[in-house]
């Protein structure tokens, strides 16, 4: 998120459509992964893969569709702050329940 990014021109209609196609393809890959795992057990590899793919979609929508790439870095900091806070707090809560399940 440099200052050049801030002044970079916004995407054109064509570029928006291309971004949407990429998002659609990634979604298709996700669904495919789900069925591949049903057919041949992926030994737990499907989980991380799915999370990485959905995080990719998450970042693309925020960065391009929500224009965060083109905004002042301050906004990204707040937004990332809320996201990371949620991730760490709820991570601890969910984690404590999982540990509880294991030790129970």
């Amino acid at each position: 998120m440099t200052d050049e990014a801030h002044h970079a021109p916004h995407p054109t209609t064509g570029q928006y459509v291309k971004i949407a196609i990429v998002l659609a393809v990634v979604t298709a890959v996700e669904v495919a992964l789900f069925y591949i795992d049903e057919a041949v057990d992926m030994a737990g590899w499907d989980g991380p893969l799915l999370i990485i793919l959905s995080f990719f979609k998450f970042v693309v929508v925020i960065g391009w569709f929500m224009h965060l790439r083109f905004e002042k870095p301050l906004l990204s900091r707040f937004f990332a702050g809320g996201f990371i806070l949620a991730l760490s707090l709820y991570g601890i809560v969910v984690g404590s329940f999982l540990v509880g399940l294991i030790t129970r």
Partner: protein
Amino acid sequence: MTATAERPSKTIFRRPETTEGFWSWITTVDHKKIGIMYGYAAFVFFIIGGLEALLLRIQLAGPNGDFLTAAEYNAMFSTHGLTMIFLFVMPVSAAFMNYLLPLMVGARDVAFPRMNALSWWIFLFGALFTYSVIFFGDVTPPLGVEGVPGNIDPSEQTLLGGLPDGGWFLYQPNAGPDFSPGTAVDFALLGLQILGIASLISSVNFIVTVFNMRAKGMRLLRMPVFIWMTLVVAFLLLFSLPIIAVALFMGTFDRAFGTLFFQAAGGGDPILWQHLFWLFGHPEVYILILPAMGIVSEVLPVFSRKPLFGYAAIVFAGGGIAFLGFGVWAHHMFASALTPVAQAAFGLSTMTIAIPTGIKIFNWLATMWGGRIRFTTPMLFAIGFVAMFVIGGLSGVTHSVVPSDWQQTDTYYIVAHFHYVLFGGSIFGIFAGLYYWFPKLTGRMMNEALGKTHFWIQFIGFNLTFAPMHWLGLQGMVRRTWRYAPETNFGPWNLAVTIGAFTIALGILVFMFNWTWSKRKGVPSGLDPWDARTIEWTIPNPTPHYNFADNPHVTSLDHFWHMKYDEDDEGRAVRKDNADEIVAQLDYDGKNPKAPIHLPNPSYFPILMAAGLPLIAYGIIYHQGLAGKLLIAIGAVITIGSLLGWGMEPLEEPHDGGGDHAEEMAEAH
């Protein structure tokens, strides 16, 4: 743009009287009026919460008290907590923030004046909704405990016994449908939900105001500490309120729609409620204390006639407290089934909170050290704050030691601790602020003799009330229990506590008399009664409704003080001129650029939109009948309809200089 007028000429400082009368208060978007309304409403609830506390103390004055039934006792301590936290300390802090934030950053209003009005009306209606439980609430005997002595018999339900009785934390499943049937707890859950919406809106508003509305030259590290604390509190609210919103929804759904989140009998896990509640609840205690810390950081330097020692350290310590405050919630849950590793981790993180808090305490002490202290009423309250908060803080550290905490959990030691930080802390700080900024509000001084009387009565009463609770707690007197046996020997100290509680009440009466008397008959304050340091004192008292006739241009921290004083060769402060002269000269030296005054238009939509929410809440409680469904529909139509009306209301200038925004937007696209 209808409210646009040219800058008033030198002789006429009053604009046409479009700003008075009943409707001006209903439709106002003026941050000062909103702040005043917040303040008075909060004080009414302070009195109610105080009376509830007195009832509790009468019951506990001697062993085997029979003044209240067990049901009434449960309801009283629950509503006392809910009232003092959500209906007094939070809104009175909001009152200070509303009134002072624009004045201290040099703006004519907050960033979103209509949203500011909206959050006030939502708060008021939420508070009224919560207390309407007294007319509508009912309690029926919990399953399987009918006929237990002292418990509720529906035929004998008293007025007070029909109030929410699940504690301010509304622990589940005790506050769930099985153990708290009836509607009383629903009012608490839904009322807090509405109050949370109000706070969320004002938090966004205050953050944007601090970031975007500062006067020229008011850089972040030149802002008064109170504004910094406002910013920190706004962020705490922003990130903690959504958590409690979900928890409250889950609790409401359990009660109203039969979900099984916290119902152990249906597979739910009550510990999840504790996590979600304290994820919010711990940041909440900093939401309660940080505004008071900000007030004290303004008062101490003024009356010590020294700059605040370690300004930046105090600011960053405030931020540090907020940040760490999100990582310590489980220390409220040491007595629940946490793993030893989690207990150790949360014990450690709790101890680290003492570091930024200690930084603040030492900086306040260093501010007073070597100063020529004037022991005025606000100063006495501020010093009282520091002393009492240290005691409360130290007993707090003892809770971070897990085995020690197990001993203290649910005893009066805990009650003593949090009253030392919330009453000795927050409320002493709030009174310091009320005495200090009273001239800003009214143009008159509060009576000093009465003020000092109030302070000493309250100070002695406070310590008589809460210090013995430490000893009672360590001797094993448990909280939330309506009676104790004579053999326990808790009687004498409990009597002392009760006497202390009534002493506090006497102090508050003195304050109320002082306030009403001084409003009419107090000595006129003039421009700068305290020899203050911050720019809200550069404008006349009481504050004109446009705040600053000319936009201030700030060149330093403690800007007003630097306008008044020079340094001599030996580094001593030398007074330049009296404040009125200096302020009068501002117009001529070009420091304050002239600008036309734009004030936002009043609007009907905030109060309308807020009115829809309690209707929806009533509807949820009575959703099984047709009336309830109708109420939900009507409430939704009112709220969404006024949202649309709001959106289509002609665009108005949000603040002075706001006309530039259209251009900026054009550039941004």
